């Protein structure tokens, strides 16, 4: 007697874990994917922010050294064969090309214009390689920002479809039977937004920081190219 009375009572538990556990397998999968996307996008966000901060600091230090008045050969020796940051990499690439050309017996008179062009090209390639490296995984942030709300919405739609099927089967339309299913379905949309909002904000911030850094590298490459071409002209004259 009492067992029948108790059986009609739905156990309503609205905690996040309970909502997850009650959900349909597809909704569960959507939630897991969204949680993974949130985790990975935050990992990328933290990584990019830390790296950009240190890159700006290193660029500051390198430019200070570069403009301090010491000879380029000394700076090249100090930076060594394995530079630790993009600006030094560009510098090393240009210097290596310069040395190779001057040592390798390229006649100076014929080759100044060509050498200048070569150095520019080497620096440009080096810069693009570095920027490509820095831009890696930004596409994941962008697609998380745009796709995860849709994924969450899919989970919600699927969950609500299931809920309505269950209502149709039990022919009970009281709020107590409808509410848990809808709550669990909406939880998927909430997760999608939780993943998407930081991804959008930080994608904008990080990509603008990256383009600022790229501009700084380009400026450095241009200045360095100008210095080298001046020296070439001085040599050939």
């Amino acid at each position, binding site marked *: 007697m009492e067992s029948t*009375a108790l059986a009609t009572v*739905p156990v*309503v538990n609205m*905690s996040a874990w309970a909502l997850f556990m009650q959900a349909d397998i597809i909704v569960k999968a959507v939630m897991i994917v969204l949680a993974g996307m949130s985790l990975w996008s935050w*990992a990328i966000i933290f990584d990019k922010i830390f790296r950009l901060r240190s890159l700006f600091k290193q660029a500051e230090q390198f430019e200070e050294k570069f403009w301090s008045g010491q000879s380029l050969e000394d700076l090249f020796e100090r930076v060594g064969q394995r*530079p630790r940051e993009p600006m030094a990499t560009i510098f090393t690439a240009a210097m290596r090309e310069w040395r190779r050309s001057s040592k390798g017996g390229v006649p100076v008179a014929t080759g100044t214009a060509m050498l200048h062009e070569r150095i520019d090209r080497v620096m440009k390639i080096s810069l693009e390689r570095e920027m490509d490296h820095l831009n890696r995984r930004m596409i994941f942030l962008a697609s998380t920002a745009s796709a995860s709300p849709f994924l969450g919405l899919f989970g919600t739609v699927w969950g609500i479809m299931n809920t309505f099927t269950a209502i149709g089967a039990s022919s009970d339309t009281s709020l107590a039977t409808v509410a848990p299913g809808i709550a669990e379905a909406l939880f998927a949309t909430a997760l999608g937004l939780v993943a998407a909002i930081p991804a959008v904000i930080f994608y904008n911030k990080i990509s603008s920081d990256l383009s600022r850094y790229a501009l700084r590298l380009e400026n450095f490459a241009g200045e360095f190219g100008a210095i080298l071409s001046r020296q070439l002209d001085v040599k050939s004259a």
Partner: protein
Amino acid sequence: MLRDTPNTGLIASVALHASVIAVAWMGVPFLHKTVVETPPVFMEIPVISEVTAAPPPPTPEPIKEPEPVTPTTEQPPAAEAPPSDAMPPPPEKTSPPEEIKKAEVPIVKPPPRKPAPPDTKKRDVAMLQDLLKDMQKNAPKPKPQAESKTTDTAKNLAPTLGERATMTEKDAIVKHIESCWRIDPGTEGVANMAVEARVFLNPDGSVQKFEFVDMARYFVDAQFRTLANSARNAVLGCGKIPMITPANYATFKEMVLNFSPQGRIN
């Protein structure tokens, strides 16, 4: 040169998510700390064991009777035994010191009489008898003083105990509400159901707000609804609860009443 996997970022991200989940799980810490709430008083209606309700009434009586006659022997157990009903004793115990003072007054008076009437032997005999009476009164006097010390300690304890709901007050409120409770014993499964309700009171003892703890079941379960309505009618139809005083309002302003017909139907 440049790391391929964002290790530190991944660790930071895992830490962030773990903390967010922890906050979601346990609630935000230190947010509601400033609000100090007195916990609601939990009551069973009806009282399942009669033991809690029965003893308090007889205990005050033995305290009243022995005090004037022979306070030495029977008082200490009375003071030890019912620590729960610390509320009623203090007014009674405050009176004995006054009696002692009254008893002291006649002791001071006799000395002036002594030198005045050395007339007849009858008067001497009467005087001696008076003296004897005085002596008898004097004899128990030091013991009541010691007793008054114990009552003082009882008074010191009284406010701390009185702040909580005493069993007698609780039982009185429960009895009051129970007297208004009409249940239909024929309802299916009523013997195994229990309705929990949260009642907020006004300072004058009237009901400010009444709500069921399990609202979902109220909507779903018809038998439960019947029982719950009877419980609501009991509380709302009973009018003001006369036991609520300004002193104990703080403890009873929020009560959780558990209406279980089990104790009634058997």
